[in-house]
């Protein structure tokens, strides 16, 4: 879809459009929905390719199983619903009918993390990465903006085997230019710096970029690393960050348990041990409310990121 730098575009809209675009190229792409198509925007694909869209009803387990079966017939099924129901309700099916047999099924975890439209604890998936990351054969993408949603959706189809694409509901500024490229499994170094390495993923990267600008104006030199692929994790980039800055801060729209922060700790612990601080949800269930008020309360606004960095550096 058409987008310019700094446009605020929701990832769900970018995902729905990307699917519809890819549907022409990939005649074997089929999309399965569990009654959230108008929310997750798979309805754009449905309108364009009604014969390749399957409404499964509110039955996530059945949806995952049907997708696994479809994959044996040479189709590439993209199943899509809210991340929290996808990963938990259909967790066993994703594990046993998709991940273990290496079924070529793509999974969109929509409405990931905090921004669920004031839906609160039951709908906020803050632990989906922790679960999906522990599954063998699973590739995980968490795109930063609408541009990366398009790129990751395409990569999901190109990669043979299960892929989990984590997208958010809310508008996120487009931070990457039209010629932006990513390589699956590789991090992107957004700024070079030596006082601290900030490693972020998904929608948090836009906030980390804002924070970096403020910090730079205060004389703090930040190495900003963006990780659109969470599995396989880019170990070299993490080691390099640890070497350069000696201190790492991770930022994610996810629990600090099991997500990006944990993945970074796992890598440095085995290679170049250094101090790692983790911003994210601190082992809590989330609540209803305005997205930005909640991000602020949980320490995930750009302003909070600045404060955290200064605190770490004793400035």
């Amino acid at each position: 879809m058409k987008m310019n730098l700094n446009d605020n575009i929701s990832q769900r809209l970018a995902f729905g459009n990307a699917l519809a675009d890819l549907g022409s190229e990939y005649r074997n792409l089929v999309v399965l929905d569990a009654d959230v198509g108008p929310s997750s925007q798979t309805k754009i694909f449905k309108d364009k390719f009604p014969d390749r869209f399957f409404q499964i009803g509110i039955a996530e387990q059945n949806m995952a199983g049907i997708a696994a079966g479809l994959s044996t017939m040479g189709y590439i099924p993209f199943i899509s619903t809210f991340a929290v129901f996808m990963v938990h309700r259909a967790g066993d099916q994703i594990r046993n009918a998709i991940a273990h047999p290496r079924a070529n099924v793509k999974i969109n975890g929509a409405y990931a993390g905090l921004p669920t439209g004031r839906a609160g604890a039951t709908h906020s998936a803050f632990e989906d990465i922790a679960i999906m990351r522990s599954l063998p054969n699973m590739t995980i993408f968490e795109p930063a903006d609408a541009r990366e949603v398009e790129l990751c959706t395409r990569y999901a189809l190109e990669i043979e085997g299960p892929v989990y694409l984590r997208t958010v509901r809310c508008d996120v500024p487009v931070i990457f230019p039209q010629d932006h490229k990513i390589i699956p499994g590789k991090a992107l170094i957004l700024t070079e710096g030596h006082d601290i390495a900030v490693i972020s993923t998904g929608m948090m990267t836009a906030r980390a970029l804002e924070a970096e600008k403020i910090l730079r104006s205060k004389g703090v030199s930040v190495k900003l690393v963006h990780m659109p692929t969470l599995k396989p994790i880019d170990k070299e980039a993490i080691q390099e960050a640890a070497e350069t800055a000696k201190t790492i801060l991770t930022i994610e729209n996810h629990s600090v348990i099991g997500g990006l922060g944990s993945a970074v700790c796992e890598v440095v612990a085995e290679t170049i041990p250094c101090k790692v601080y983790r911003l994210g949800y601190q082992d809590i269930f989330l609540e209803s409310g305005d997205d930005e008020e909640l991000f602020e309360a949980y320490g995930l606004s750009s302003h909070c990121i600045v404060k955290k960095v200064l605190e770490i550096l004793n400035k």
Partner: protein
Amino acid sequence: MLDHTKYLTEIANNLRKVVLKSANNAGTGHVGGSLSEIDILTALYFSVLNIDPSNPDWENRDRFILSKGHASLGLYSVLAERGYFSKELLDTFDQTGTKLQGHPDMNKCPGIDFSTGSLGQGLSIGIGISIGAELRKKNFKTFVLIGDGESQEGQVWEALMYAGVRKVKNLVAIFDYNKVQLSSMIQDNIDLEPFAEKISAFNWNVIEMNGHDMGPLESSLKKAYHLSGGGPVAVIAHTIKGKGVSFMENKFEWHGKAPDSRQLAEALAELEGGQAK
């Protein structure tokens, strides 16, 4: 025709012995459910299914999914007899490094159309295959064998609802209704009755018969095969857990146990004694 039925019955009776010997050899295995399903599997693989064991990935083959994946020994013994792999492989069942995992693995064992093990999942996978076949304009059939205890899983009913509403074609669900689950008789657990009425209310064509009487069993499966062209068909096969070995029959204790050597000898003697109808 009678000779044909007798031929199938003899194969099934022999495979009962194979199941018991393999379980004894491995010191493990789910013999109860393997013995209840063996006549069904024999009828499918030696008569009903359009398959080519020398080309297990043939794209127009009929598909079979063992949703009750724990009863793998029954399926392995049939696949070996049908020539999908060497019978010697049965001696490796459940042993370290084997192709014959405790639960069927499509990436390890020839002839396995989909990996199973976690109960309740096979019918959804079968629906996916059937939908894919229809999109590709193929007419092969997909058979899914489901346990009765397994049918307590909610996903089975999600799948039944979907296939009934959408009239999924060329899909047959066979229920191995042996009335016994891991820890008790079904009626002492969460009973399924009225089972046929429930499935029928989900808009499936339902056929019921004795799952051990080879003649009617084979003809019912063939009937289901043809009827499924118009929408999903459920075959409720009334079976006996541990069928053919009197001390195993209807005993939940034999759900997931292998016979020791003395029990094996006793069981084989009984089967040699001409249980064949």
